[in-house]
């Protein structure tokens, strides 16, 4: 996993409450090999017209959006299917952080495992940011995971990035979780022995 410490970028606003993972990546693309790159599938059906051309009105298709690595999203972003392809699509497109009032639980966890930083920001603050970006589309936001702060433009203030320390530490250091878990192998084995001992049917 790519480590993340601090990211400063302009912000693209993705409209829609309950933006489910089917919108982030339609099901027909999730059988693709990751090596193909999933960025091409990001928001596929809502970014494009029926004939497949990029819709110039979709926020991510505007020329100014090309360099942005942070998205501002609405409530319950990433709800629905557990497909990690939704996170692959965002990451492969170059997105490094998301800001929104809430995220689907499985999506949130998938994001953390891929070094994509989802920042929960209260609804009212998200609203203020939307309004500010409408007036100042070039305004930059900084996601500083090292200090645990989201730094918004102008007078919108600094906000704590609420994330459990474990996940934060993994992302900051780009830690491989499986390798880290193997350091506890002795405890796992001892636990397992007792568990299987009292639940023999698990071992058939």
């Amino acid at each position, binding site marked *: 996993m790519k480590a993340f410490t601090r990211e400063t970028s302009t912000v693209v606003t993705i409209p829609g409450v309950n933006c489910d993972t*089917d919108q982030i990546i*339609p099901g027909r693309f999730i059988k693709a090999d990751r090596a193909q790159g999933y960025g091409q599938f990001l928001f596929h059906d809502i970014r494009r017209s029926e004939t497949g051309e990029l819709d110039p009105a979709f926020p991510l298709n505007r020329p100014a959006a090309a360099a942005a690595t942070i998205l501002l999203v609405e409530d319950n972003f990433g709800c629905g*299917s557990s497909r990690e392809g939704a996170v692959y699509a965002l990451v492969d497109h170059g997105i490094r952080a998301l800001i929104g009032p*809430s995220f689907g639980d*499985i999506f949130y966890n998938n994001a953390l495992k891929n070094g994509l930083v989802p920042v929960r920001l209260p609804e009212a603050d998200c609203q203020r940011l939307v309004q500010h970006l409408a007036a100042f589309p070039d305004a930059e936001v900084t996601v500083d995971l090292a200090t645990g702060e989201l730094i918004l433009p102008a007078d919108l203030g600094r906000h704590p990035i609420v994330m459990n320390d*474990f996940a934060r530490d993994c992302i900051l250091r780009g830690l491989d979780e499986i390798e880290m878990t193997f350091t506890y192998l002795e405890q796992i084995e001892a636990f*397992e022995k007792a568990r299987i001992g009292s*639940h023999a*049917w698990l071992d058939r």
Partner: protein
Amino acid sequence: MAQASAPRTMLGKIWDAHEILRHPSGPSLLYIDRDMIHEGSFHAFADLKRRGLMPRRPKQIFGVADHYVPTRGRALADAASPAIATMIETFDANMEWGGLRHFGLKSREQGIVHVVAPEQGITLPGLTIVCSDSHTSTQGALGAIAFGIGQSENAHVLATQTLWQVRPKTMRVTIDGVLPQGITAKDVMLFLIGTIGAGGAGGHAIEFAGQAVRNMSIEARLTLCNMSIEAAARLGMVAPDEITFDYVRGRTFAPSEQEWDVALSQWREVPSDADAEFDREVHIDGSKIAPMVTWGTSPEDAVAIDGRVPEPASFEGEEKRKAAARSLEYMDLAPGTPLDGLKIDRVFIGSCTNSRIEDLRSAAAILKGRKSVVPAIIVPGSTEVKAQAEAEGLARTFQEAGFEWRDSGCSMCAALNGDFVNPGERCASTSNRNFVGRQGPGARTHLVSPAMAAAAAITGRLTDVRRI
């Protein structure tokens, strides 16, 4: 020992029994009893192979081909495209590579993973169960911690049989009273999600309780827990009771008769203590619920069948108003339109929400001696459900009603296997998601119970099943 004697919720008890250790920074390292694999898990296998690792506990991993399987036949050649056939082949190859038990396309035990797992006794009270599918919440109906994970976490489970997890908050949903005739667990869930919202249970584990739940069969409880993810819950669960124990007994991967008494004494300890405290409580009067139907593109867009398509202006907040307007545009519906009588083009009965034997019985009861006036397919949840429905004569009822009687799989719910709703078509569907494009690009989904879907088939319109 004050801690141990404090009243605990079912979630707390099962969690504590699986916590190997707690990291100083918060999350628990949870032991995972069983992991279910499907075709979509190929990323996790690629990850293992890249690392040179093998599945650590093969006996605790089970595979089922469901998302991509053809429903018109059981040969690989029946797959809708070569790319789809490759998904099924890759699944078999990965399972064989890992030395993992799996129920492939031609297996008698094949079916939708969340139908198969309880059916085979893989899902048991008190277990931790994961699967790289959001509807893993279904399996909590037997009193287990069961939740969906992504492929990175799936690889972690395959490699270590553990997961780092933050304990969710608890929410008890009490459904009091007796459900009226014709009202099912599906209606209860659409009502609940319509009430608390698609994000309403975010960060919480739901425990369903109350008289209506105690009276429910396992099939109905599976439907309840299945849709808890549509309210953004981490998982759903129902306390195990005699109905659960009767259901589990004798199933292939359940404790044997020799082990039964030991298992039973463990399972009786699983339910929440009487005075356990939940972080949130929601009460629903089950006796007041009507047959439900969705009008929009989120499961929260649910109203009673005698209701109307709402006016976007009636919603609170600019985002909700915009979302409702977008939904109505996609669904091609005008505000104020009565749902009852809305013309539909197609019916789908199936999915991990509503494809178990009881669902099929309830649809057959409506269809008996009647004809569908629109194209309609019925996809049983498992090959075993299919055989049972044939033995009970239900299949014949469906065929006589003009339904296509298919082989089991996820089919038109996920629309990954080539079964889809055509662009612009309106489908009465017993699945769980009415998302934009979910059943195919441009597809318009109305979520309903199996009985309501059957009623819609015979009239060609969304119809109040209580009239039939």
